[in-house]
């Protein structure tokens, strides 16, 4: 059992079954089994991850990754959509932590500001106004839970096998596209202390046109959203006006 492929295949299958059991299926049966299976799969998968060379790094990454993945699984498995949103918030926090850990300070805070601070809260709002009592009947069932779980996990398995294969198989080690950067290089470029300044220079230098395009996209989206939402209200208003005229 030292072939990582076999372990990964098993992990994938275990994860698929576990997730299928965890997904809302209109019944609570097998849920705890699903949780255990998924946890086992997660542990087995994690055991195959390479060592990061430093116990502090390893443990920090481990905690962040575990928070991210577990809360992501909880997001799709919980029946109550409000809980889904909260778990997704935790996923976001975990991702932000991973960003920070990878040296992307700005992205970490930007994720929290934009995703957690604005998008998710707005969605929570809509959720609470639409379903103030929590879960509805359609939250207790899924569409083709087994099929989508197997499909998704097979996708994950293939991806991770590819990743593991690329970086572990000795024969491909020779064809490694680039060498990993040295710490010194990193400190001068991606991990500079003036991170934001460097990012800004890059963004508004090299990618200026992209920024402008993104700005235009934002504007278009804003206008589009306003039009979509206002459409219903306009109809109402027109009707009311017509009514008043008739009166």
């Amino acid at each position: 059992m030292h072939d990582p492929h076999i372990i990964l295949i098993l992990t994938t299958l275990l994860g698929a079954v576990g997730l299928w059991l965890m997904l809302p299926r209109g019944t609570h049966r097998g849920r705890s089994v699903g949780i255990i299976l998924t946890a086992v799969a997660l542990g087995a998968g994690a055991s195959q991850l390479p060592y990061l060379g430093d116990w502090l790094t390893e443990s920090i990454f481990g905690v962040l990754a575990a928070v991210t993945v577990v809360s992501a699984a909880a997001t799709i498995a919980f029946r109550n959509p409000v809980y889904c949103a909260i778990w997704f918030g935790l996923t976001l926090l975990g991702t932000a932590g991973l960003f920070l850990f990878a040296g992307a300070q700005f992205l970490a805070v930007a994720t929290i500001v934009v995703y957690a601070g604005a998008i998710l809260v707005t969605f929570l709002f809509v959720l609470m106004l639409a379903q103030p009592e929590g879960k509805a009947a359609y939250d207790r069932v899924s569409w083709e839970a087994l099929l989508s779980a197997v499909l998704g996990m097979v996708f994950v398995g293939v991806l991770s096998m590819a990743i593991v294969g690329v970086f572990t198989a000795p024969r491909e080690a020779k064809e490694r596209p680039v060498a990993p950067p040295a710490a010194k290089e990193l400190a001068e470029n991606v991990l500079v202390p003036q991170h934001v300044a460097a990012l800004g220079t890059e963004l508004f230098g090299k990618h200026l046109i992209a920024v402008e395009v993104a700005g235009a996209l934002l504007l278009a989206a804003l206008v589009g959203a306003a039009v979509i939402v206002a459409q219903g209200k306009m109809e109402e208003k027109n009707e009311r006006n017509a009514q008043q005229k008739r009166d």
Partner: protein
Amino acid sequence: MSPEIALLNNYLIVGAILFGLGLIGFMSRRNMIVMFLAAEMMLQGVSLSLVAWSRFRNDFGGQMLVIFIIAVAACEAAIALGLVTTLFQRSGRLDIADWHALREANQPAFVDEPISEETSTEEPLPTLARAGVAPQVPPVKTDYRPNV
């Protein structure tokens, strides 16, 4: 294996898992907002890979792309929210299955499978006992003068 490669490896795998979980959620869940959250989760997975590559490549390009992803996600959120609210106003539910009328012509209609009623573990909310019918009481005489 050098730590940098190991880090990249780990980030990519976490990213892949996030993407896969998002995929599963988007395919299986029926609540429009939960579906949207799953979609966002897929974006998170991609962002994670990009940041890892950015670091591995020692290049800001990946982080740039993530910034744009966040921008696009914000646009997406605005429009999706608009759509969801409009759809909710029309059907009164957040169920995506309500919109199966928009399917293609040769597709069968969606039939909701019956699910068993969930037994609530909570004690029932206190309610007032049903009040009875008011008795017919003869009107009280208000004058106390004897019949003189």
